[in-house]
């Protein structure tokens, strides 16, 4: 798409069962400091593609991944996995704060769970900064030591975003982060994503076209595991090249 992409996906295929690829020969480049939306009907392979980017599939040995993904020119498959996941954070569909941890502990979980020792002042700084960036600080500053699971769904999701950015990643992967939220909470998270792209590169899976249109700069449209079309969101929405994209955008399926 542009000359200096942060992430290049190169002929990537992912198969849950041998012979049946959920993602088929996808190639794409992701622009720095922008929101790239991955759209497509349910089951088309959006989550599968996203989870390949931080090598989540490696947890399940039966899943086969081929092709390459490069982060700043370096293959992610040759990096230590902790370094990769430190540089590429992830936010899930349903908010999943650690139920055994307080709000404070959840934000610094990336450090504590990896035995990365920090001074208390450093931790306090990280927590305050991350919670500020997700506009949660004012809401929770008096209850930092309560369990994260006591928050509302929308607050929990922002806490999970804070947990991801506390690690100071370059890229944030978001898998339908608002699909479990009510409209008010959704609007808040969408505003937040618009702010976050100043510092991070966002890769956002959504099956909500209007969300993609509202907040993304670039879009990828997937269908049956293939990347059908990608480009500037505006172009894709106003002037799609492929008739499958057009059919999807006009609501013919999905």
């Amino acid at each position, binding site marked *: 798409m542009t000359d200096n992409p942060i992430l290049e996906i190169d002929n990537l295929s992912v198969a849950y069962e041998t012979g049946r690829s959920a993602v088929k020969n996808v190639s794409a480049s992701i622009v720095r400091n922008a929101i790239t939306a991955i759209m497509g009907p349910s089951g088309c392979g959006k989550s599968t593609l996203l989870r390949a980017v*931080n090598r*989540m599939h490696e*947890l399940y040995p039966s899943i086969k991944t081929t092709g390459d993904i490069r982060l700043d020119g370096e293959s992610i498959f040759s990096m230590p*996995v*902790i*370094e*990769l*996941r*430190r540089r590429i*954070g*992830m936010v*899930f*569909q*349903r908010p*999943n*704060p*650690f*139920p*055994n941890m307080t709000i404070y502990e959840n934000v610094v*979980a*990336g450090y*504590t*769970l*990896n*035995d990365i020792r920090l001074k208390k002042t450093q931790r306090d700084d990280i927590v305050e900064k991350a919670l500020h960036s997700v506009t949660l600080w004012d809401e929770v500053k008096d209850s930092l030591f309560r369990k994260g*699971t006591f928050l509302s769904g929308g607050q929990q999701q922002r806490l*999970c975003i804070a*947990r*991801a950015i506390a*690690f100071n990643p370059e890229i944030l992967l978001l898998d339908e982060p608002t699909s479990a939220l009510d409209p008010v909470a959704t609007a808040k998270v969408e505003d937040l994503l618009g702010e976050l792209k100043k510092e991070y590169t966002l890769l956002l899976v959504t099956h909500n076209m209007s969300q993609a249109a509202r907040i993304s700069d670039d879009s990828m449209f997937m269908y049956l595991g293939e990347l059908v079309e990608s480009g500037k969101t505006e172009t894709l929405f106003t002037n799609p090249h492929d008739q499958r994209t057009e059919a999807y955008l006009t609501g013919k399926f999905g």
Partner: protein
Amino acid sequence: MTKEIFLNENIRQRNRKNKRFRWLVIAGSVITIIPIFLIVANLAVKGVRQINISFFTETAPDTFQAMIATSNGEIIPGGIANGLMGSLLMVIIASLMSIPVGMMTGIYIYENSTSRYASFVRSISEILQGVPSIILGIIAYLWIVKGVTRGYSAFAGSVALTIMMLPLIIRSTEETMKMIPLPIREAAFALGVPYYKMIIKVLIPCSFSGLATGILLALSRILGETAPLMLTALGSPAISLDIAKPVSAVPLLIWDFYNDPNMVNLVWSASLFLMIFVLSLNLLSRSLAAKHKYI
């Protein structure tokens, strides 16, 4: 018109059935509850007289003291301290052996639920749960009494109890792990946390109350065990903390009291104590289990 009447009739019939069924359920539950109340009431009436401080601090009386007290119409002197200490000793040792091993096995089975070895281990554990406790006593007798401590011992009793606890801990660990949603685990992985650290720092703390529930249930299950202890710990009139020597246990004492016509009164009080203790453990584990649901 006819259709409507038919529908109304149908609904009325269903209501009648519902009502009848509800009465049946209520009757059934009353029938189950009554014996429990009768047991507790019976034990309380007969046993409460004997329960005082010395009941917990003194060892069991000898038959002569008991006879004199009974013939004078006094309460029997002495208590169950030797049984309490013996039970405590064996339960602690059995817990130290069975909880770590059982938890690790449970986690292993859960994490590798599709592997053949894991399902083999699961089946063995299920079979173990069904083995009569007297047989586990015989096994501990052969292994430990004959082979290790060369005589009846607290350690042999602990081993018998360990074998009883193991399948319960394994089972409850596996069930508890199943309740932790996959996205919680994945959240840890997405932060680059290695597998074993995820288990130690996320899985186990998250399932703490579930694991505690299982442990308490296992404890309440073994506290009343008598048969395997007869073949292993044997019993002892004095307080002993030597794991290579025979020790007493509360259920063993109840059996001893029962066999001595002068001490029958102590049967009620010791049973009352054991019953209340086990019931409290059960209730505690229930309240923990209720808490665990939040995840």
